[in-house]
């Protein structure tokens, strides 16, 4: 295990704990929510730290890679977009300068360049299995292929699912087969079995999350808009990319708290944002 990565990852996690504790002291309801939201991220980080320390397997994955499977199989995972974005809190703006030094064309997506930097800068631990993401853009699939340029990443097994461009029955069947194959691969590599009943439970939970997300977005059409721009983004993370909340009741509760707050704002006809003067 690369000690530097562990050290950096712990630093990032500590920073999250600190911010979470700070926000918990605020009387504002949204700060209370953010405190829990960031704590959930830190909790997921802690599991990766434990895996690193104890030499237990964990995955690197990408949004849209059916993370409900990981919850159902009780697999630990992370996505390097978080350390990529949070690294600036530890390293400061020099992260951007370091990112510019990577010989990947600067007109390519900043997130992908920052993610490569998180790997070069020892902020993203080498997992035992990488589940590559092939959607939504050209760059992301190639980004995952490019990971093989880095020591450690070259030697780990990679699973991937090819997303069809269409949304008809044939396309769903195609993707279904890809997901099944990926799940088989995970079973083979981790020795953990996928219990379909357990997966159903997880999906029921995550469907609740998605339903509330729809409700949340609907309410944002109200005037004045009850919540600021990036709040919906948090639901995306809770339902898709924070391992401790994906398909877990704790995630559902978090989303409910956000939705409740939004509804109250709607009832009181209050705006969730202020126009910048």
């Amino acid at each position: 295990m690369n000690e530097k990565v562990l050290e950096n990852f712990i630093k990032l996690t500590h920073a999250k704990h600190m911010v979470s504790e700070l926000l918990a002291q605020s009387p504002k309801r949204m700060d209370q929510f953010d405190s829990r939201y960031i704590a959930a991220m830190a909790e997921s980080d802690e599991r990766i730290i434990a895996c690193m320390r104890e030499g237990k397997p964990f995955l690197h994955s990408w949004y849209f890679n059916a993370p409900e499977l990981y919850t159902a199989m009780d697999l630990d995972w992370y996505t390097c977009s978080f350390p990529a974005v949070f690294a600036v809190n530890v390293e400061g703006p020099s992260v951007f300068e370091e990112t510019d030094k990577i010989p990947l064309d600067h007109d390519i997506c900043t997130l992908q360049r920052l993610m490569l930097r998180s790997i070069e800068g020892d902020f993203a631990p080498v997992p035992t299995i990488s589940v590559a993401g092939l959607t939504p853009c050209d760059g992301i699939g190639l980004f995952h292929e490019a990971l093989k340029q880095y020591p450690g990443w070259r030697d780990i097994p990679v699973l991937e699912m090819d997303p069809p461009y269409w949304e008809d029955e044939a396309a769903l069947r195609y993707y279904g087969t890809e997901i099944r194959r990926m799940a088989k691969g995970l079973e083979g590599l981790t020795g953990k079995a996928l219990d379909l009943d357990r997966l159903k439970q997880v999906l029921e939970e995550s469907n609740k999350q998605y339903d509330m997300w729809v409700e949340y977005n609907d309410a944002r059409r109200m005037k004045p808009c009850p919540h600021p721009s990036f709040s919906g983004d948090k639901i995306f993370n809770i339902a898709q990319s924070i391992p401790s909340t994906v398909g877990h009741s704790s995630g559902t509760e978090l989303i409910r708290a956000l939705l409740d707050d939004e509804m109250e704002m709607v009832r009181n006809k209050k705006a969730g944002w202020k126009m910048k003067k």
Partner: protein
Amino acid sequence: MRDTVDKDAIVNKFMTAAGRLVNDEMQEWLNRGGRIIGTYCSYVPEEIIAAAGFMPFRMRAVGSDSTELSDVYLTHLNCSFVRHSLNMALKGEYGFLDGVVTTTCCDHARRLFDNFARKESFPFIGMLNVPKRNTEFQVEWFYQELLKFKQAIEKQFHLTISKDRIKEAISIQNESRRLQKQLFLLRTDKNPPITGTEALAASVSATAMPASKFNALLKVLLKELPTSGGRKNYRARLLILGGILDNPQYIKLIEDQGALVAADSLCFGSRLFWENVDENEEDPLKAIARYHIVDRPSCPHLLDAREKHIAFIMDLVDQFQIDGIIMERINFCDNWGFERFMLRNTLKEKGIPFLSMDREYLLGGTGQMKTRVQAFLETLEGDL
């Protein structure tokens, strides 16, 4: 004496065809009532289009001078080829087409499809979902895509595409590929009878003429061309690697600095004719699916093919005694941006010098380009 005239006339024909949207052979096809379907990517199966009685035409935006109409729908962050091509479509300059077909191979090509579909710009607008992986399961998926594509053409134009017609089209296209490869291989010689500029003009012409007409021309050219005794005293043998480079003048600019562009791996070059479609396969669509997903040298968007892809380039380097590689890319292209990023480590390990050049679709910034190429050649030559 007569021979030289023939040879030069054919080379000139190819150079002229590459510099124009509509060439003489195409115009003749149109005059005789022939119809044409445009394709935006080398993964569109020309054989199916040809089997339906159409001439497949690989889309270029040659002659475009602005993007003022397309910039309403696209932004300056889109591929300049796509912007110029959409602009030409909106100006009606592709009026000779009965349809266009794109693939899902890149984000920008998909936006072309969206805009064409929304504006109903052509009677037939298609898009093929090319998978990003290359297992048997993907061959099957692409086979289904080909089947749907064939049915869509049949439905749109009220015709039937028989298995035999597809097989016949494969046979003609395979001949084109074999002849083009034969021409390409001439540059393994120390003093090849053709330049890189002329070779690209030939392979661009292959995408813009009725295949049998092109084959006949190329056959004559190959007969007339000596196998050696051509260009000498060049400073280095280069390989050019990249995407939709369709302009021989770009290669000429490199060769004018004293280089010989001895080989290429381009979307309008060797990747299109290096392998053939299996003519023994009972189901021709199966053969086409396998050709694109497994057999042919792949585009970087196909993700499981890295080692094969590197092997292809290294074989070219050996076979054509390449001194250095120029990696070109149109700005904002993720596929080729990441390809270069990954390839640079391999090339460094193998000690093969390379030069990265960014470009816009239309040839411009030639002063800078000349400086870069000249300096690259000077570094290849070593101590001055």
